[in-house]
């Protein structure tokens, strides 16, 4: 981690990793989509069971990405890791995107299965709150000009928002919800038949690799953005030094 604190080392390593990650992501999605197209319809849900293979990985990622942002926020505030705020800033739009997918696909599954697109159920509401926190972090980054102050403010907001993660996870146990309880990670093992579990696992792995690929690319973009901003300021300062005193540069 300390070695990666050097942006040049990070850029070199990530450039080497990205082609492999991209290839692996595409291959896993190809296998995942083929498996999803060939699973039998569920005896209760019928064809709508296929929505689960995108809804569940997106919902897992919504929480996972926020976990990554929470670690990055600690990295910014506690360890002052130079890339932590870049990692946090790069993860926020991706987290918002996956949370949107989870909410939209869940809603499209809910209409035929529950008879409604939306209920103010504890699980659904806590995930909606997570989506709003993502949007809040994005808005805060954009509203502050001083990027180091913005990084600290966003890190604090992210840490405060992290309280929503256990609420999302345990909402189905703490309250009576329309949303079904956990069916994969349970104390008794997965409650799902292997015919659905395998495609779900492959799709979840593919979605996680997609996030890692996009996240690495977005962190690289953030580093390039900072370099460009520094070069622009240096060029402007050099222009000022060269121009005669009092004259416009």
């Amino acid at each position, binding site marked *: 981690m300390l070695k990666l604190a050097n942006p040049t080392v990070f850029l070199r390593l990530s450039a080497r990793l990205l082609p492999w990650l991209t290839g692996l992501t595409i291959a896993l999605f190809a296998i995942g989509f083929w498996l999803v197209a060939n699973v039998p319809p569920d005896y209760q849900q019928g064809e709508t069971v296929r929505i689960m293979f995108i809804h569940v990985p997106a919902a897992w990622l919504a929480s996972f990405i926020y976990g990554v942002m929470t670690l990055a926020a600690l990295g910014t505030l506690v360890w002052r890791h130079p890339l932590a705020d870049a990692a946090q800033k790069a993860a926020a739009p991706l987290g918002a*995107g996956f949370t949107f997918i989870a909410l939209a696909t869940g809603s499209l599954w809910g209409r035929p299965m529950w008879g409604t697109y939306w209920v103010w159920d504890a699980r659904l509401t806590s995930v909606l709150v997570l989506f709003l926190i993502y949007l809040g972090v994005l808005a805060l980054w954009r509203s502050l000009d001083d990027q180091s102050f913005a990084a600290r403010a966003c890190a604090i907001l992210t840490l405060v928002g992290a309280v929503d993660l256990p609420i999302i996870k345990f909402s189905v146990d703490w309250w009576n919800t329309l949303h079904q309880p956990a069916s994969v990670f349970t104390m008794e093992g997965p409650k799902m038949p292997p015919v659905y579990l395998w495609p779900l696992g492959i799709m979840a792995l593919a979605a996680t690799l997609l996030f890692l690929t996009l996240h690495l*690319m977005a962190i690289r973009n953030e580093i390039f953005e900072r370099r460009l901003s520094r070069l622009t300021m240096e060029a402007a300062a050099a222009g000022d030094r060269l121009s005669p005193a009092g004259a416009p540069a």
Partner: protein
Amino acid sequence: MRPDHLDFVVAAYAVAIITVAFMVTRTLRQSRRLRRALERFQDAP
């Protein structure tokens, strides 16, 4: 016969694919723009 609700399945996959495509193109476009801008700086005398 019970309806298969395939329209909802297609809509869900469309939403997911469009959102992912947006995230991917946004990241790639940003990367290309920044690379070009940095190259212009390096090429400048």
